[in-house]
């Protein structure tokens, strides 16, 4: 999937957009190999502090999911009115290293979501306010 680079990202430090296909970035403990998303300054597994950057990747499987059925209060800043709010999917996606990444999902229909299904990383304009640049975040879509 080729994506135009969005101008405004909520979390630019989490993503590698080089090559036109987004990938998630995290870190790995040099002592025990534990993988973290987002990048961590220390390892809560073995208590070491020597961490290296780690590419968490773009593909995984759905580990759990829900549908956000009501409009969240602040700090959520989707910017829509309560009447315009549309429920959105949220899940954990298990990545090849085993780490599970919490993410918005591209679909919000329970019939289209099942634990174990393959998922692929994409970008989603979660804030679209007229007269403003849309703001993007990472999201997973059924592969």
């Amino acid at each position, binding site marked *: 999937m080729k994506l135009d680079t969005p101008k405004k990202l909520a979390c630019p430090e989490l993503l590698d957009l080089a090559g036109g296909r987004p990938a998630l970035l995290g870190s790995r403990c040099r002592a025990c190999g534990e993988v973290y998303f*987002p990048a961590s300054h220390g390892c809560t597994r073995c208590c070491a502090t020597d961490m290296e950057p780690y590419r968490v990747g773009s593909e995984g499987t759905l*580990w*759990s999911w829900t*549908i*956000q059925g009501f409009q969240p*209060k602040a700090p959520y800043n989707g910017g829509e009115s309560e009447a315009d709010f549309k429920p959105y999917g*949220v899940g*954990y996606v298990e990545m090849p290293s085993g780490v599970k990444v919490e993410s918005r999902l591209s679909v919000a229909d329970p019939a289209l979501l099942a634990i174990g299904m393959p998922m692929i990383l994409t970008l989603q304009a979660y804030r679209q306010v007229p007269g403003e640049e849309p703001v993007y975040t990472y999201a997973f879509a059924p592969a």
Partner: protein
Amino acid sequence: MDNEVAIIGVGLHPFGRTDALSGQQQGAYAVREALKDAGIEWKDVGVAYGGSQDGGNADALSNHLGLTGIPFVNVANGCATGGSALASVIAAIQSGVAEIGVAVGFDKHPRGAFNPRPKDWGLEDWYGETGLMLTTQFFALKTQRYMHEHGIGEDALVRIAQRAFRNGALTPHAWRRRELSYEEIAGSMAVNLPLRKFMFCNPAEGGAALVLCSAKHARKYSANPVIVKAAVMRTRHHGSFEVFNPGLAAQQSPAPTVMASRAAFELAGVGPQDIDVIQLQDTDSGSELIHIAENGFCEHGEQAHLLKNGDTDIHGRLPINTDGGCLANGEPVGASGLRQVIEICTQLRGQAGARQVPGTPRLGYTHVYGAPGVSAVTILQAG
């Protein structure tokens, strides 16, 4: 053990909404009720621990109760605030700091869901801004995964809520006192699937307090003291599935509940099969579902059958949340854990009226769990 500590007085400011009173006033009310129950006065108390999440400092209760100069320690441990205050008072009495101690929790939360700030949790702004920082979402994601792993259907979630409101209707001080039908719960708004509106408790207000002393002296104050056989608090290990986590570890590990529960049973020298009446954290149906097994009362996956069979009802073999739990009482975070202890004391004293567990219960159990991965368990015995 000759070093045991007993509860000699309990006091509650009913949970719910009390617009005319501050959280601290509700906390002070609960302390006065507990002192009255123990037949003592505030000036007899030698040490106090307490806390709230949104209701201010507990030691400010002294301004209501009397400035007697005692050590009054503020506790801030989220959902385990009450449990931590209780464990601290017990340690203080056991170490000889005071003969009589008070544990108090109270709170007053704004209406609607909690709105946490990412920075307070060591998270970046994007996590809150993009709509991932909600406790209801976490409970739903954890429940969904658990039901998948253990082959449990939505029926179990409905039955937990139904029993909570049925018990709440029997409890004079409960906030929600209307029984809800199966259909009403199963058809309520999908808040965060698989969890629906009537499967969640609401943030609320209220106060709860206990008066404790050495078990050796308990009979001086109370005809029916309750012995604290264990009061244990634990925090999470690496790999535990906890709230507000953008990433979960590759290998999952047992929840803090499991650790607190095991330690409490070991300390008390009893097992789950010995417990006659149980309080489990039920911020939502899914949490209670998980906690029934995590506390050792059944195997993972057995809950669906237990619930369908009525085993967790007041007249069942594992009576759970006899006062309607958080679902029927709401959750003032600071007070919630001590409400559970008070309900067990009421049951062990045989004073629970229409909701009394039959057959003179002797051993009771309480469990709280919450952010950011803490749990507190008590095991209580009729004295």
